[in-house]
């Protein structure tokens, strides 16, 4: 249905940051025309028994383009995102070449024009993510980049990180840190603990993450600059962030679905599908991540969607690249595994990350007249089984193959386009 035709999303329960109510939503041409009862339009999307919500926003997606198109492209990644209910994803800059200049950002934006969701590039903090020299953040900011990160690695040098925070604050953008002190992680391929000891796999201790979180909290205090912590995985990191927030620092944080569902015991067969960075931790850490979500001391659930070609994931465990798919399973995992009402799950997946990414003008907003028609329709009771072979991502490295989930995206509307209808991508 062309987007110039009026469409009514009928009979659903509308949930946004303002609350929950039953209502029909009429959209046309990328905009919400009206929200109310008994509304009619030429085109009807049946939403009875479903939740109508602002589209989800992923703060942490690896789209692999440019450079690793055999694993994912902007097009296939965006399609996977739309199927997962996302209308916007923040593309991580660890591409080849690195997204560390306006030229590469422009290339990503060019490829993203016609894809199934909005792709918002992030930029690297340092040139080539080498941690040595600042990347030209201002020229990237002019193209709309608002988040800068060396994700994949942390900025090791504390002095450089301080300058980066000051510089970023000066131009009104935010830094996001992948917290991993390389000297402590020492090349560890999994969490350091009972399992790494048994398996003979070099481990990285929790303190490799926590030490950098603590350092950067202090640098945020010193510089007055905001900082966002990516994919926190340890109980100690989460406690440090909770404390910093209580002290009034501008600290935000995200957690990933695999860190509230899987433990290091999953690595017992040396299947590198379960290799990820930060690594899967202990049961106690999983409980700490869940507790932080219940307490509200983190801001977002972000996927860290990290596609890798099958032959790379079949390398020896210590040599295989870290990372797992996440876009098509995040919502189902959150609804199934977290003891949270759907309103709070959606806050973590939509409007809170939209605010951090500073795209609230078009994503995660209120479902009201004049709002952007970036929406998803979720059947919260639909039960389904994850099938790695059926995923839209170009890669197959999901650790959740065969897992039963409750809650599935039925329709996704991106700028008024019905990009997913009845769970099927339309492009």
């Amino acid at each position, binding site marked *: 249905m062309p987007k110039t035709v009026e469409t009514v999303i009928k009979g659903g329960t509308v949930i946004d940051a303002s609350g929950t109510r039953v209502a029909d939503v009429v959209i046309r041409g990328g905009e919400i025309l009206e929200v109310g009862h008994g509304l009619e339009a030429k085109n009807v999307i049946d939403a009875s028994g479903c939740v109508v919500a602002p589209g989800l926003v992923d703060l942490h997606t690896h789209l692999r383009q440019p450079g690793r198109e055999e694993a994912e492209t902007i097009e296939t990644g965006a399609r996977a995102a739309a199927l997962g209910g996302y209308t916007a994803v923040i593309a991580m800059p660890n591409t080849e070449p690195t997204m560390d200049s306006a030229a590469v950002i422009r290339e990503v934006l060019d490829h993203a024009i016609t894809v199934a969701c909005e792709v918002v590039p992030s930029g690297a903090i340092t040139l080539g993510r080498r941690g040595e020299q600042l990347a030209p953040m201002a020229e990237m900011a002019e193209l709309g980049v608002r988040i800068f990160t060396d994700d994949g690695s942390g900025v090791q040098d504390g002095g450089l990180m301080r300058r980066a925070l000051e510089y970023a604050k000066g131009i009104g953008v935010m830094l996001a840190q992948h917290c991993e002190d390389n000297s402590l992680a020492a090349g560890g391929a999994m969490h*350091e*603990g*009972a399992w*790494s*000891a*048994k*398996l*003979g*796999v*070099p*481990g990285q*201790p929790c303190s490799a993450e926590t030490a950098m979180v603590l350092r950067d909290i202090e640098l945020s205090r010193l510089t007055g600059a905001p900082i966002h912590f990516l994919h926190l995985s340890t109980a100690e990191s989460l406690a440090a962030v909770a404390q910093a927030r209580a002290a009034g620092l501008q600290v935000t944080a995200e957690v990933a679905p695999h860190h509230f569902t899987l433990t290091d015991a999953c690595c017992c*067969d*040396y299947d590198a599908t379960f290799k990820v960075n930060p690594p899967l931790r202990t049961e106690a850490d999983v409980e700490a991540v869940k507790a932080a979500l219940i307490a509200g001391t983190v801001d977002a659930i972000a996927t860290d969607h990290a596609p890798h070609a099958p*032959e790379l994931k*079949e*390398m*020896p*465990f*210590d*040599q295989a690249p870290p990372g797992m798919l996440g876009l098509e399973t995040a919502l189902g995992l959150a609804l199934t595994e977290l003891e949270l009402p759907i309103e709070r799950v959606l806050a973590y997946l939509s409007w809170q990350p939209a605010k951090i990414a500073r795209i609230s003008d078009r994503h995660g907003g209120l479902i009201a007249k004049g709002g952007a028609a970036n929406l998803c329709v979720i059947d919260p009771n639909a039960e389904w089984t994850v099938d790695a072979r059926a995923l839209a991502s170009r890669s197959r490295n999901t650790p959740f193959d065969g897992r039963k989930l409750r809650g599935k995206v039925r329709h996704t509307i991106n700028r008024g386009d019905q990009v997913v209808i009845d769970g099927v991508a339309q492009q």
Partner: protein
Amino acid sequence: MNHLLTIDELGADGIDDVMRTTDTFAEVNRRPIPKVQALRGKTVVSCFFEDSTRTRLSFETAARRLGADVMTFSAASSSLKKGESLRDTVETLEAIGADAFVVRHRSAGVPTQIASWSRAKVVNAGDGQHEHPTQALLDCYTLRTHLGDLHGKQIVVVGDIKHSRVARSNIAAFTALGAKVKLVAPATLLPASVGEWPVEVTHNLDGALDDADVVYLLRIQQERTDQALLPSLREYSAGFGLDAKRAARLKPGALIMHPGPMNRGVEIAADVADAPNAVITEQVANGVAVRMAVLFLMLGSGDLNA
């Protein structure tokens, strides 16, 4: 026996099976022509992705004495160098007709991965810092020859436990057979969570010697000093090396073992290595019979001369 990947999955009964079968092959090895035809027509591929002369020769000798054909895959001059993946390499070797893979790799878990891809049997010949089960089996066999039942015996394992596949397999085997295991190492050379292992841990070798039935020394590598795990090999040797003075404190009949290759003068003094109660070359000799037993239990029909 299906695969031999870890000692744990073999268990005490499995170890006993191997020990009993090893007796048979030890007898075969004493014959003028130490050869049977139990695995005639079977192909054993020796896949040493990491160099190892002694273990490779021991396995290949064992396979040949059983009448099997042996293919030697050398990583240094192989398709892997041309960029072929491990899985493709394994599938190719299987297509050529491998019945069993003997796998040595510098990364932990590779034998487990190969077992998941292949219909052929897999013997772990040492994977990274994980396990080296046939080393543990030949050590148990050697110990039984001298001490009989290991139940209640005190075995002291000294050295780099953290990075040692030999230690992991031996600790599993010794405890499965009822021995009491004591680990002696500087704190930097002990694995995370060692407190959860069914062993006693101490940093003081002198205090551990008096009631030891066996002292098992592990090889220490120079690179541990580069990683700041040790100040120097000299300091290690002073604290944890078995020199003549320490060896003299052992009770009569106590055995000294080492998986080789030894660093004489570091973890073991030269005169201690050559002492009558050091059974280090006997360990190597038993290796062939133990590996014959493992391959026979894995690939044989049960009949020695089938």
